[in-house]
């Protein structure tokens, strides 16, 4: 836009004839043009900021979604604990990302490994980054820690939580996002020096790897080192389902996450007012269409994964389960997040279909290996996230890749679309590097916490529930507590048989349908 819209009097003058009047005329006309183009530049900033800010608010709503999802998925006695961790993710994340996280991630100019400017938002706003961009990235950063908190729920000391959360949000995550999203990052697909990894760079558009895998792998190590919750596997090793206390909260959380994902994926374009000038389509086609398409692919992937899970679990388990469907839905979203901007809508359906089976498979595997993850976070965000990265390497479409990551003609694209193996290679590198980096940083951290007995709560605490022992009381008081009965607070004995936690394949009859 800029070049065609600048107007310098010196250029116009010859055309008007070099008289004295003509100089004035040229200046007059060009002055008007300059004003117009300045105004248009302001318009662009305003439109793009509006878009980015509201997207950031939506992404923030995901934190609410996480909180509700986690709260509903744990037992009532640990609800306060998990919600506190979610509130703190947002609060502590806000401070640490302000102080140094953003600097590590986007502090250009820097090296390929870590950024080093903008500590405490110094020298902000700059030509390249505005406050809205910071807000948007902050909302992403707090999401990663939220994922991990699900994996280690119901058995982790609050202090351990504080330590790992600030380490993850302030250091581990920002560095990964520097690698793949900063213009200086060694694996970025839009590197400023043009020296792309495998001539391609990694396409992780909205963060299947950067956000979801990082959170998932960190959760995997945490949950693995802590071991399963008491009672999750019985003496002879059979799996016992410890159900969350409220499916309503799970559904509420899932829908809120879905809502927020519309900020997460389409919002990652960062700007909306940008025409794709070399497109073969008409002028009606531009970044705004690509954003709409991204929202559509996101929707379709999640929906397909949910339906697949619905019928898959019906066949495997025998009843229609809303919590499973919710998890399937989120798995589909986590998978499409990497490629959402560069694939066709039909490919999103493929993505979601596979993601559902990936999740089911990893869950089976986890049960077999006696790995206990109350929210399936490692399986869902780690497993489906990895699949999403590979999926992008297979299905990225040439035209879309060039539109979204402009400036490098003839770059590789998806293997199945005829774009060669280079992109897929980069994607696999991404998976390996993320697994390696997170394992090297978070694994020892959790191990150390474990050694110093700061990680897992005591057996008594776990049986009584952390809300009572650490957080001042239970989350719910439905009974009138004034009645002086000797009953413990809020039993719902008539609804759930409490004494005999039978393995779930026994007491869930598949009756109807």
């Amino acid at each position, binding site marked *: 836009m800029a070049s065609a819209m600048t107007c310098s009097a010196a250029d116009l003058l010859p055309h008007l004839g070099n008289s004295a009047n003509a100089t004035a005329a040229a200046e007059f006309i060009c002055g008007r043009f300059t004003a117009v183009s300045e105004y248009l530049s302001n318009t662009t900033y305003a439109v793009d900021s509006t878009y980015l800010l509201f997207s950031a608010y939506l992404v923030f709503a995901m934190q609410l979604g996480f909180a509700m999802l986690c709260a509903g998925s744990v037992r009532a006695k640990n609800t306060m604990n998990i919600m506190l961790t979610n509130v703190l993710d947002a609060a502590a994340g806000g401070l640490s990302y302000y102080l140094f996280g953003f600097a590590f991630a986007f502090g250009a100019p820097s090296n390929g490994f870590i950024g080093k400017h903008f500590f405490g938002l110094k020298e902000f706003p700059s030509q390249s980054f505005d406050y809205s961009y910071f807000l948007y990235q902050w909302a992403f950063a707090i999401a990663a820690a939220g994922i991990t908190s699900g994996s280690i729920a119901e058995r982790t000391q609050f202090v351990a939580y504080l330590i790992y959360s600030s380490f993850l949000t302030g250091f581990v995550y920002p560095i990964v996002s520097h690698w793949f999203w900063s213009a200086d990052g060694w694996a970025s697909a839009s590197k400023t020096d043009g020296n792309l990894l495998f001539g391609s760079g990694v396409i992780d558009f909205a963060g299947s790897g950067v956000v979801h895998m990082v959170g998932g792998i960190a959760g995997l190590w945490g949950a693995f080192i802590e071991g399963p919750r008491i009672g999750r596997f019985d003496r002879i090793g059979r799996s016992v389902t410890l159900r969350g206390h409220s499916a309503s909260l799970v559904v509420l959380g899932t829908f809120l996450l879905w809502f927020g994902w519309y900020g997460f994926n389409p919002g990652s374009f960062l700007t909306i007012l940008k025409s794709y000038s070399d497109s073969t389509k008409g002028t009606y086609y531009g970044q705004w269409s690509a954003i709409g398409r991204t929202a559509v692919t996101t929707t379709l992937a999640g*929906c397909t994964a*949910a339906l697949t899970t619905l019928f898959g679990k019906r066949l495997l388990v025998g009843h229609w389960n809303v919590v499973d469907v919710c998890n399937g839905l989120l798995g589909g979203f986590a998978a499409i997040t990497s490629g959402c901007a560069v694939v066709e809508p039909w490919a999103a359906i493929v993505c979601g279909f596979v993601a559902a089976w990936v999740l089911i498979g990893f869950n089976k595997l986890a049960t077999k290996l006696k790995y206990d993850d109350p929210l399936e976070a490692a399986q869902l965000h780690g497993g489906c996230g990895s699949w999403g990265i590979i999926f992008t390497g297979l299905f990225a479409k040439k035209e879309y890749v060039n539109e979204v990551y402009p400036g490098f003609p003839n770059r590789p694209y998806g293997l199945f679309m005829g774009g060669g193996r280079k992109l897929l290679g980069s994607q696999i590198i991404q998976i390996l590097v993320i697994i390696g980096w997170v394992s090297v940083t978070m694994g020892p951290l959790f191990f150390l916490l474990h050694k110093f007995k700061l990680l897992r709560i005591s057996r008594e605490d776990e049986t009584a*529930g952390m809300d009572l*022992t650490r957080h001042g009381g239970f989350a719910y008081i439905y009974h009138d507590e004034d009645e002086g009965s000797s009953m413990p607070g809020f039993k719902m004995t008539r609804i759930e048989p409490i004494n005999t936690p039978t393995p779930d394949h026994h007491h869930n009859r598949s009756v*109807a349908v």
Partner: protein
Amino acid sequence: MDSSWEASVTDSINAIYLLFSAYLVFVMQLGFSMLCAGSVRAKNAMNIMLTNVVDAVVGSLSYYLFGFAFAFGNSNPFIGANFFALKDIPSSSYDYSFFLYQWAFAIAVAGITSGSIAERTQFTAYLFFSFFLTGFVYPVVAHWLWSSNGWLSPNSSYLLFGSGAIDFAGSGVVHLVGGIAGFWGSIIEGPRVGRFDAFGNPVKMRGHNATLVVLGTFLLWFGWFGFNPGSFDKILVPYPHMVDQGNWTSVGRTAVTTTLAGSTAGIVTLFGRRLLVGHWDAMDVCNGVIGGFVAITSGCSVIEPWAAIVCGFCAAWVLIGLNILGLKFKFDDPLEAAQLHGGCGAWGLIFTGLFAKEEFVLQAYNSGKTQTTRPSGLILGGGWGLFGAQIVELLSIVVWVSLTMGPLFYLLQKLGILRISTDEEVAGLDISSHGGYAYDASQEESGPRFYGEYLRMQHQS
């Protein structure tokens, strides 16, 4: 100067507006599921929430594959036949954001119906009707009213009665369709076990969680700001010969009329029910608010704010009246969805025929042209053209939905896959088909209740 800069700016602003409106409309699905979950008994909560999730999920696939094509493909006035699976999208007329917006509308319809038949329907039946309703019945109605060549559309080249029916955001297309479908489902299934006692007196069956109902209502209200004002599709459309005014003014006015209608209906319901029943009931107020919104949805963009108050006032009484009538005829609808969306939706269509203002009609449908004239509300002196078209719309929607959904429900009933058995109904759907209850607040051991008790126990031990 680049020839397309103007188009770029316009397109991107309109895309922002439409996309965020679509996101808001999507929130209504969350609102519906919370409203439904809170309004049923605890033993069926998982079931109703699953149906709501599945609505969104099934709806998006069927709407992607053919629903959108039926609704907005341009072929004949009755049904569309382009754009299957988003082929040739984006085009110069429809962008992806438009699809997303319409998708969010489509999934709302099935959500309405699921409320009517809650607590007693087999999940398989639910899958069938949801697919059929979202994929076929609703898109066809949407094509009639909203596609540029639908036979009832106020935008087509041939206008019915010189006017076309004005159903701006879908009192008829969305709410009446969902309500009538629910009406047939509920009639064919019959009332829940225990809803009417041996003497035919109604027994109140309260939902299990009023907080979820309020949560759902507020979320619906929030989403309605996308539903009604968002239906303008574009915000950057200036009105010629009007300084400073354009679609942005109308969008704001639409949000205001929507708010006023809902507020009025809520307050009228509050006092009305206080007089009739004797206590202040939050659930009734919530339903009243939603009834007001449903009614204003048709005319929200073409009426003055004061008319919205009239609309809400009547909507509240329509709802109260239909509820009394429903009880008399032993019609059982756990969420009052047929009364609310059907009844108030129908009133909304008539209301638009009475109170539409010509200036605003021209703004909404002719981008504010001043030279032309269109029929407008009967009471405001706009003639019978619009009112007639509204009545035709009302009747044709009732007939179409009855002809399609009625036989479907009947067939499902005959095949024995509509209603669950009495035993299962008494036990609750959650335990019989969904693997357990929604709430599991029991504790394995009788622990202390308060921190104080805990400390004291610690002391003793």
